[in-house]
């Protein structure tokens, strides 16, 4: 039997505000435990929340960038449950009246554009962190993160494969980065996602029983976990079994999912409007102000690069998929105006080198100007394209600029005919057999002679000139 996969994602994005959502505490990451706290976020008796206006602004930005309707009146609600990382015994969230609803984004998978619906975006506060002692049966509570603002973005069950889910996740990641409302760091948990996934026989309208997947802290893990879950559910269904509705935790070490204990998920959250916070009323003026201030979004930037520079769909998609990478590209473009060549270099050399080093573009040792200089040297014939790759690798390691590397390593291209002819004469006299064979018609041996010359010049010979001079020398005699 053929099955269709149905996936919906719930994404939590920590907002990049300076202070927490309901108090004036700093949101800075990595402070000593319980230092970014005050009576309000500690949930001391008698305290009251006061909403951070920037949180609402960021949520509206996200809503506008994802084609949502912005609810002119929306409201916070309390989600009640007990846990030591939740000092008030409830999380302030939104329930019946979230700030944004009914949005959509477009993703591209296998050259097909698909529209994915967004059910809602709501604002809420993050909980603290528990730290479990590895040696003693003791747990510690760190409430620094308590009250950090989050938006939760809930998709419609419109995703039909793990690839689509990953593409959607990357798309939203790109949007929050472009809007500059979230740092997007999945390892630190500032951008995280849970997935609901079910299978149904192809053609069937009704959804199958779903499971909820948690603890996937990278794009790769999200796709791997979903792929695993598709296989697991399909095996169950093919065996005539039934999928149990439950919450599963992805274990990246064993590459499989494990069920959470059912006790941990048996919640009735008893949502009700938070009486400490008055309904939020959003004016038309404010929405207009935010609309006008929205930056260029990933899909807009992609279209612009395709139209103005002639980049390919794929290259433009990858470059604009990461705001930092696109900024890098456009900064380099100021000093080096061949967009296609630049894009090609970034797509091949730069991304490969970064991947090998497991680095982000922000950690790259080569500046956009540095890359522009390197490519200009190639265009001017100062170095060859091949040498440029060596120079680039050196730049990635040492952080030195191209000129310095070329000078230090003496890599300037040899374009002096006299010098090259001298070496060609030496090669011809040292390899009489090959010369005879070549002259006898085995012209494939040209490669051998070029190799010899490159060896002698340590790769610095101007390739075109080398070929030209060699051919001339060999054919003449």
């Amino acid at each position: 039997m053929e099955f269709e996969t149905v996936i919906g994602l719930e994404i939590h994005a920590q907002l990049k505000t300076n202070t927490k959502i309901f108090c004036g505490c700093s949101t800075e990451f990595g402070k000593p435990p319980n230092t970014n706290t005050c009576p309000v976020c500690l949930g001391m008796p008698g305290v009251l929340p006061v909403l951070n206006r920037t949180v609402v602004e960021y949520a509206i930005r996200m809503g506008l960038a994802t084609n949502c309707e912005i609810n002119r009146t929306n409201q916070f609600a309390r989600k009640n449950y007990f846990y030591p990382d939740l000092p008030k015994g409830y999380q302030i969230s939104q329930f019946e009246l979230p700030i944004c609803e009914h949005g959509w984004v477009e993703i591209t998978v296998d050259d097909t554009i698909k529209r994915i619906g967004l059910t809602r975006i709501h604002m809420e506060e993050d909980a603290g962190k528990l730290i479990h002692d590895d040696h003693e049966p003791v747990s510690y509570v760190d409430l620094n993160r308590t009250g950090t603002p989050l938006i939760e973005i809930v998709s419609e069950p419109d995703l039909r494969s793990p690839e689509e889910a990953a593409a959607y996740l990357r798309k939203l990641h790109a949007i929050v980065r472009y809007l500059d409302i979230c740092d997007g760091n999945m390892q630190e948990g500032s951008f995280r996602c849970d997935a609901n996934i079910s299978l149904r026989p192809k053609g069937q309208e009704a959804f199958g029983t779903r499971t909820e997947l948690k603890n996937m802290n990278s794009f790769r893990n999200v796709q791997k976990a979903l792929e695993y879950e598709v296989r697991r559910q399909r095996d169950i269904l093919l065996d005539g079994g039934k999928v149990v509705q439950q919450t599963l935790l992805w274990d990246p070490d064993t590459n499989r999912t494990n069920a959470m204990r059912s006790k941990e998920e048996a919640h009735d959250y008893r949502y009700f409007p938070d009486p400490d916070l008055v309904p939020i009323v959003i004016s038309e003026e404010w929405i207009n102000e935010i609309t006008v201030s929205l930056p260029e979004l990933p899909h807009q930037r992609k279209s612009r690069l395709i139209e103005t520079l002639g980049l390919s769909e794929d290259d433009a998609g990858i470059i604009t998929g990461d705001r930092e990478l696109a900024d890098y590209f456009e900064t380099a473009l100021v000093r080096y105006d061949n967009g296609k060549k630049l894009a090609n270099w970034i797509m091949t050399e730069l991304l490969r080198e970064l991947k090998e080093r497991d680095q982000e573009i922000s950690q790259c040792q080569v500046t956009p100007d540095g890359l522009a200089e390197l490519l200009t040297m190639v265009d001017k014939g100062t170095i060859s394209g091949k040498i440029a790759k060596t120079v680039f690798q050196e730049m990635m390691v040492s952080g030195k600029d191209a000129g310095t590397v070329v000078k230090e390593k003496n890599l300037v291209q040899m374009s002096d005919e006299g010098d090259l002819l001298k070496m060609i004469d030496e090669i011809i006299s040292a390899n009489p057999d090959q010369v005879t064979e070549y002259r006898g018609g085995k012209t494939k041996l040209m490669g051998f002679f070029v190799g010899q010359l490159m060896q002698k010049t340590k790769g610095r010979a101007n390739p075109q000139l080398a070929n030209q001079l060699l051919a001339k020398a060999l054919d003449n005699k």
Partner: protein
Amino acid sequence: MDLHTLTIHQLHERLDRGEVTSVEATEAVFGRIDQVEGKVGAYITLNRTEAMVQAEAADQRRAAGDGGALCGIPLGLKDIVCTKGLKTTCGSKILESFVPPYDATVVKKLKDAGAVIIGKLSMDEFAMGSSNETCAFGTPKNPWDLAHICGGSSGGSAAALAADECIAAIGSDTGGSIRQPASHCGVVGMKPTYGRVSRYGLLAYASSLDQLGPMTKDVRDCTLMLQTMSGYDPRDSTSVNCPVPDYSAALTQGVKGLKVGVPKEYFGEGLDSEVEQAVRSGIRLLEEAGAEICQVSLPHTDYGVAAYYIIAPAEASSNLARYDGVRFGYRHQEAESLLDLYCKSRSGGFGSEVKRRIMIGTYALSSGYYDAYYKKALQVRTLIVQDFLEAFKQCDVLVSPVSPFPAWRIGEKIDDPLSMYLSDVLTIPSNLAGVPCMSVPCGFSGAGLPIGLQIQAAHFAEEKILQVAAVLENELGVVGKKPSLV
């Protein structure tokens, strides 16, 4: 002279004239406490050492020419507001050792005005009760008859005032908790408009209903306290940013031409005849003083108690979730797991009335019941608000009894929660509507127990209440009578 018997304005005059010092007045109040507290039991915590320091500072401040109305005045605070460095129990074992790291906004305002904090006053546990019998640390007695309740939940505040154990006090009112004990103890108590006084630092019982207010020996003192306590607080999103008028101006306005509404539903079945008589004689006096009396109707009054006992416990079930034994307050020492810690700490730390309301509230908010209970209660609340809006189209204030009967005997209703709940039928609607209201003494029962008259007005019309109260105070001559405790 017995300094502890004075009102704020009487003591203020003497302080201003240099006849007495705040230190002397504070010592006099503590002397009175030493004398009668054993009988009354109004305080949970006394602040002797710090109070004397505050009194000295107030005297210096006054000597430097910076002595406002509350400077050097010994006050008692209901143990429901956070006081930095001073134990705040909310009448509960679960907070028996809790020392707040911050001052409530109201406490800060009073301290900034130079007030002297005598101590923390007894109350029903988490303000849940109408007799102060649910307090984990004993029940204060009614100074007019020690066998009777002083009312609740701000029972300690009312009892301390009647017994002259402080010059003035603050209370909090969620369903009548300032007015009912004020009525039972023969003192003045006002619940201001919801949003008039900051709730920051007030331990929440039912956030949409709770409001802090003054409890005083006379109406003028009430204006002085209200003046200092009121105002917008950026720390409380529900506090309202509108100007605070000069309340004392209302005291001399009289009631000529004022339209006084008498809501018929407040004089229905179950109203004690002595209470009705006292209130009606108050109304006659207002008429004689030039007020226009009219009959009005608030048809949904009877549903107030039912709506209240859904909304208040629902909010409480969430507000009280933070008392979990993890970070502060009582923690059971023999818990074997996290769940066990929660269960044992909360079972051992909360009293039975608090547990009852947490259970009611949890039930009302549960999925499948929310629409039938909580949502329905909110709809009833809207109807009650509309009742008031309609009524205030016809009149300026509403006058009625506060409690259907005078203070009952200690123990009489404690095992009958429903009859206890119903005793709040006349005070609950103003909380649901958020309107300001007051209890002002208007007479005594045959057994010598005080009877209060309730005045309610439209949102932010506290001045009209004060106008009426001032006239009643002058004409009735009831305010200022003292029980013979010693």
